[in-house]
């Protein structure tokens, strides 16, 4: 593991300062602080009672609390119910194609260190069609926050088996019950090399906010699995984790060492409802910082040259 100082070598490419440090003083006097009202966009198309509402409400609270101007946020999503998220918030938003939100967001994050990039999506987007991208974005430690609203079913297409559906789940594509062993998102994230891995659930909005704040502060790829009930196609899926429905909400034990990969993996393997909180968090240089370092090294050799002069120099060698 590399020390924190290492990742702070490149202030330009480090995490965006949540306090709008680049906003001029006069502007902050003129601009009233952001309110929820300014953050709300279209009314969500989600079904009444959908778990995703809790995540959305938490997001408004998060942005209000962290005082990030909305033009400094980019929200990116793929395809699915939860991926409609960007339409419901006032921020520069992107509704991309199914499963590919992470590489798109990587393009934004790497070229625009001044933005905070959020990616929202579901379990199909993250672990089925976009599984490869999840692995590689995690291992590259791209600076962005990825919130997966896991409902363990394909909702937008009306109840097909998802990669996280438990064995025996009856769907339109497994009328007799799912036979394929499900993916464990936490294990997947830890083994792929994600540097921030947390688990929460929509029935505890305070906890969702706590995880989102910690994720936003993390300099690197921060992943949150948020259980989010699909009331239409998988009602009651997460009752065992909801005290109001007779379940148990266990936070990660105080003695858990978040830098211990094996302990985190073990925690992830516990039977439902398991634990909630930060399972794993380590500091490792982000791709953003490492690329900035490459640039600094190469640019130091051509210091003082304009783009044109640099190119003229290259062409002189090709004569």
């Amino acid at each position, binding site marked *: 593991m590399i020390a924190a100082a290492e990742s702070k070598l490149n202030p330009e490419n480090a995490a965006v300062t949540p306090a709008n440090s680049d906003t001029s003083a006069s502007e902050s006097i003129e601009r009233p602080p952001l309110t929820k009202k300014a953050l709300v966009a279209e009314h969500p198309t989600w079904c009444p009672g959908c778990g995703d509402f809790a995540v959305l409400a938490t997001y408004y609270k998060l942005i209000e609390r962290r005082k990030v101007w909305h033009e400094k946020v980019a929200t990116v999503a793929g395809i699915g119910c939860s991926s409609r998220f960007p339409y419901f918030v006032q921020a*520069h938003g992107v509704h*991309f*194609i199914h499963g590919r939100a992470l590489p798109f967001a990587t393009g934004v994050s790497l070229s625009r260190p001044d933005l905070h990039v959020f990616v929202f999506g579901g379990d199909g987007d993250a672990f089925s069609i976009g599984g*490869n991208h999840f692995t590689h974005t995690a291992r590259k430690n791209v600076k962005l926050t990825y919130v997966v609203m896991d409902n363990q079913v394909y909702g937008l297409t009306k109840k097909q088996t998802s990669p996280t559906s438990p064995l025996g789940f009856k769907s339109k594509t497994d009328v007799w019950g799912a036979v394929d062993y499900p993916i464990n998102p936490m294990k997947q994230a830890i083994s792929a090399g994600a540097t921030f891995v947390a688990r929460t659930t929509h029935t505890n909005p305070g906890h969702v906010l706590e995880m989102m704040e910690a994720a936003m502060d993390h300099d690197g790829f921060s992943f949150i699995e948020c259980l989010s009930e699909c009331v239409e196609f998988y009602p009651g899926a997460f009752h065992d984790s909801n005290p109001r429905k007779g379940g148990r909400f266990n936070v990660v034990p105080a003695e858990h060492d978040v830098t211990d990969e094996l302990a985190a993996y073990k925690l992830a393997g516990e039977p439902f409802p398991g634990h909630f909180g930060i399972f794993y968090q380590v500091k490792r240089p982000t791709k953003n910082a490492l690329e900035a370092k490459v640039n600094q090294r190469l640019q130091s050799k051509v210091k003082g040259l304009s*783009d044109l002069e640099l190119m003229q120099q290259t062409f002189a060698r090709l004569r």
Partner: protein
Amino acid sequence: MSVASTDAPAAKSAGAKSEVSDVVIRIAGNSQDGIQAMGAFLARLAGRSEQDVMTYMTIPSTISGGPSIFQVRIGTGEVVSSGDDADVLLAFYQHSYNEHIGALRKGGIVLYDSGHVTPNADWEQQYRHVAIPIAGLTVEAIGGTARDKGKNMYALGLVTKLFDLDVEKLRGLITEKFQAKDESVLSNAMDAFDSGYAYSLGHLLETFKFADSRRRGAKQVVMNGNEALAYGLVAAGVRFGAGYPITPWSDIMELLRRELPKYGGTFVQCEDEIASIAMALGASYAGRVAVTGSSGPGLSLKTEALGWGIMAEVPLVVVDVQRGGPSTGLPTNVEQSDLNIACFGGHGDSPRIVIAPANVEECFHMAIEAVNLARQYSVPVILLTDQAIATRIEAFPEPDLKSLVQDIAPDMSPVPEHKPYDLESPNGAARHRPPGTRILSGKYPIVTGLEHDEFGHPTASPALHAQMSAKRRRKLQVLSEALPVPPVYGGEDASVLLVGWGSTLGPIQEAVDRARAAGESVSAIHLRHLHPLPAGLGELFNRFPNIRVIEMNDEGVYGYGQLAGLLRARFCTVKIRGINKTDGLAFKVRDIVERIRGELADSLRKL
């Protein structure tokens, strides 16, 4: 080989020196022998000597080794193709000799490694054989046990002697190439080169000397098409790229990975083709046109995301260096069979721009054009090249970088309100504001793949889908009107008009020259803008009774290839037919001339 003075006899006695103006040298060996490096030295020398040059190579798709050739054509006038027949064959092995003697013109010179090649008695009657124990003499020159190392440099010395090339310039080039490496590498290369040059050819055959170049004074640069394309992108202001390794695109990716950081940009090698286009679209969305690229198989994978770029109207440059397909096909051969997927690949109606450079120089300039078209029309632009242009080296006048290098940094000044998909947009293009831009109305846009209204909100309104489809289509209609009709090569009217695109430019123009020299009325045009087509093309076609589209792709079920199909659909005329080939090799001039003569014997008007 064109002998400059017409009265010079074809063959002279040993020791004499003839003046030549155009020479084709084919070097045949294995890919690990460094024959590409040897060819590149010759090409670079020609560039520095104000000569014109074009190379042609084949490489095996095996991991290491296998037969390979490198052909260099050097001329004191304009060289537009790599030449049908070689004047000199340099054969390192028996298989090189056996396979490539057929590429030598009758009476041509074959220099062969007598340690490896046993000449054929019949061929000895037809070609002038010169036996030199190349490998053995190389070992003698540089010592050591590295038997095969350095023989390319020895052979370079031989060729230098044969054509009286500029030794000092070559020594300079060798030094530039090897000086960064271990000292012994440079001294070995130089020793091998010097020994080759010192070998006395004089007693074996006459030597040659290039006539003075007609290009004197022009400052030239020498590079291959992939390099030219990559530098064009950098000049155009591209600072972000993403890609996945695939032949023959990888060189572009590798060069951008090395170069972009110097300009404050970056190139990301992604987990797959889909991630690469997604990432490039992300960077484009973030404010500055980005690039992704691949070859045919990768373009297939990218088409869904390409459709998003078209629907969301996010500018992007997608490079497709075509190779033989379908599927893995012929990874190291040339074909022009991705035109259909480039123009139409994808689901739904998805208008995009497709342009194709015809030579190495155009790779540079059209990369800049691709970036500018993408910005102007807020749409993905496919830059279609092929394996032949990608790998061949050409010398061309150094571009005026001062007027070409541009800054396309995003403008993020606050705006009162923002309507990205304005239906009244004069050229149909969306106007995006990059993230980071403050929108004073507080209404922020969503850039989306769903059909949307003018603000980017999703809509299922039938009327809006029709209006937005028309808006996206209008971009291509506006561009089509703005595109100039390409100039006619040959005469303004003729019995047959040849239509080409991409890397076939050279052989087509030489075919026109050859036909016209024989009194046959043949002309040609070359299309760089394939989708949309220039609006005035129909009137031009009306002037010619026969049109033949020359393409390196299959003639298809109905007897014409991909561009011919497009042109027939556009101009509704049966006089458009195809001349196609699918052997994975570039057109030879004679392929074209013979096909025209065969098919159009009755209608070929005499000049």
